[in-house]
């Protein structure tokens, strides 16, 4: 397994890229210090300015400090929301797919209801309802990702619960929890694992987009999306203000997608269609 993982180029590339960004996010804020400190004589400085590795923004703030802290926020939001969505989505999907009947009808129609709406619209509406900030982003991404995962898990469970080994376990008189935990859950773990990496990517993009339009993380919190938004007005003067945070968002999304593709091929190439259907809406 380990050797096969090392031979999987996408997985290795994704993990390598992801590790670099992760290290930046973990160590960076300790090295570069206060992300809000302004040096008003040092505005719009390019990359490589002494003391400011990534240069400074229009308020003379150290871009290295802001970008690395932004990575932290982005990753903490994306990973924790997805973790919750994975647990909740798997539970809901298991219940709908295994219990079937009226329970399934209610759950499936609620899933279809939410699934029809684009994530960004849901997030904007959440911001309209409870005010801008990271909370509406977390709620919207959490809800949409939970539904997305529940939808796939339900489908998988429906198929698996018809299979011989489950029927055999049932006729063997095993309890429902035992059947679900010992016979069904192990079979859905690969698809959930692969999906979760895609939904981390979705969460990163959603947080960055919302922050970009001003509805996500609010200043003085540094968010990568907001930095791209601030920097885009100074493309001619000092493009680094927008291209560094933007490039890092892209690197994060790319690394998580590569890990997802790699995991998919590693765990079970047959997952390809199931995953594409889920991700491509």
């Amino acid at each position: 397994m380990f050797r096969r993982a090392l031979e999987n180029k996408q997985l290795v590339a994704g993990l390598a890229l992801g590790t670099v960004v992760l290290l930046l996010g973990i160590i960076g804020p300790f090295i570069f210090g206060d992300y809000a400190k302004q040096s008003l004589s040092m505005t719009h400085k390019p990359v490589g300015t002494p003391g400011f590795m990534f240069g400074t923004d229009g308020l003379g703030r150290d871009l290295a400090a802001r970008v690395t802290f932004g990575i932290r926020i982005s990753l903490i939001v994306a990973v924790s929301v997805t973790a919750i969505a994975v647990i909740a989505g798997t539970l809901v999907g298991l219940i709908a797919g295994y219990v079937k009947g009226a329970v399934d009808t209610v759950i499936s129609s609620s899933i279809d209801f939410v699934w029809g709406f684009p994530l960004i619209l849901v997030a904007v509406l959440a911001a309209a309802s409870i005010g801008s900030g990271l909370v509406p982003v977390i709620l919207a991404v959490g809800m949409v990702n939970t539904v997305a995962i529940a939808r796939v898990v339900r489908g998988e469970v429906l198929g698996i619960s018809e299979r011989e080994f489950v029927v055999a376990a049932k006729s063997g008189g095993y309890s429902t929890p035992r059947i679900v935990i010992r016979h069904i859950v192990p079979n859905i773990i690969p698809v959930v694992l692969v999906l979760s990496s895609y939904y981390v990517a979705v969460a990163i993009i959603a947080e960055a987009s919302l922050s970009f339009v001003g509805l996500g993380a609010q200043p003085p919190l540094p968010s990568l999306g907001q930095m791209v938004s601030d920097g885009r007005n100074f493309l001619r003067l000092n493009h680094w203000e927008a291209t560094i945070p933007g490039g890092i968002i892209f690197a994060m999304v790319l690394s998580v997608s590569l890990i997802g593709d790699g995991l998919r091929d590693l765990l079970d190439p047959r997952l390809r269609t199931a995953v594409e259907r889920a991700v491509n809406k």
Partner: protein
Amino acid sequence: MTAIVKQALLTFLLLMLSSLAVFAAIRLSGGDVTAARLPASATAEDRELFREQIGLNKPILVQYVNYLGKVVRGDLGNSLTNNAKISSLATEKIKNSLILGGAAIVMVFGVGIPLGMLAASRRNTWLDASISSVSVAGMAVPNFWLALLVVWLFSSTLGWFPSAGQGGFKYLVLPSLVLAAEGIALTVRMTRSAMLENLSQDFVRTLRASGLSESRIYFKHVLRNSLLPIISLAGLRVGQIVGYALVVETIFGWPGVGQILVNGVLRRDYPIVQFFSLVLVVVVILGNLAASAGYVLANPRLRK
């Protein structure tokens, strides 16, 4: 056909439910209307009276029905920030968004399908590899980042297109390209795999054996079989484009529904948010309806 009627009824129910949900969510926002509309010196009684006048103290369901009644009569209320009539704003914003969204949809299929066909017909060549890898990248690029890159390249550096605003064809190119990017990438992939799948079918072998030219097989028989499922799902692309339009219109300063909605949320201008979010919700639901109807029409087995 009954499937479609059933779907239409279900959609109507869905429309009612989701517009009520959106309505309630935004009423919940707690943004104080009186702070925006009354002078700071207004007393608590004045504020209460004002709330009563505009019906804010009634149950949410009553407010919702009243609101729908007004919408049907064309009375959409006024913006809280500049007191503009929403009904006159609406025509212009919806028109602008339709132009942008329409251009994006045309691009999704007009660019995506030929590229996908090209990749399929040159399978395993450098051309196929480059089209496929660009389309993988196209799906991973967040669209505000893509927007920044195209503005930087085509506007700041080359000066070919304006970076923002509206007026004429030139202003439409960059925003619609960015809005369409993910859809193009997706269509390329779907077209390529559908073409390849159909090319390996038995009927293609039979057609070849009966002496039809390759190009005729390719364009007439294989293409038709491949495109139906792709185009029938166009409705799903509508939902996607609506979501992205919120970001893309804001970036490019395109005066459409997405931009006014985002600005409305930023300024807590709830009559604006109320109406334009309803517009988008309706569009998304109709898009989904079109997708499921198209799916049924394209799959004779599902028609009963």
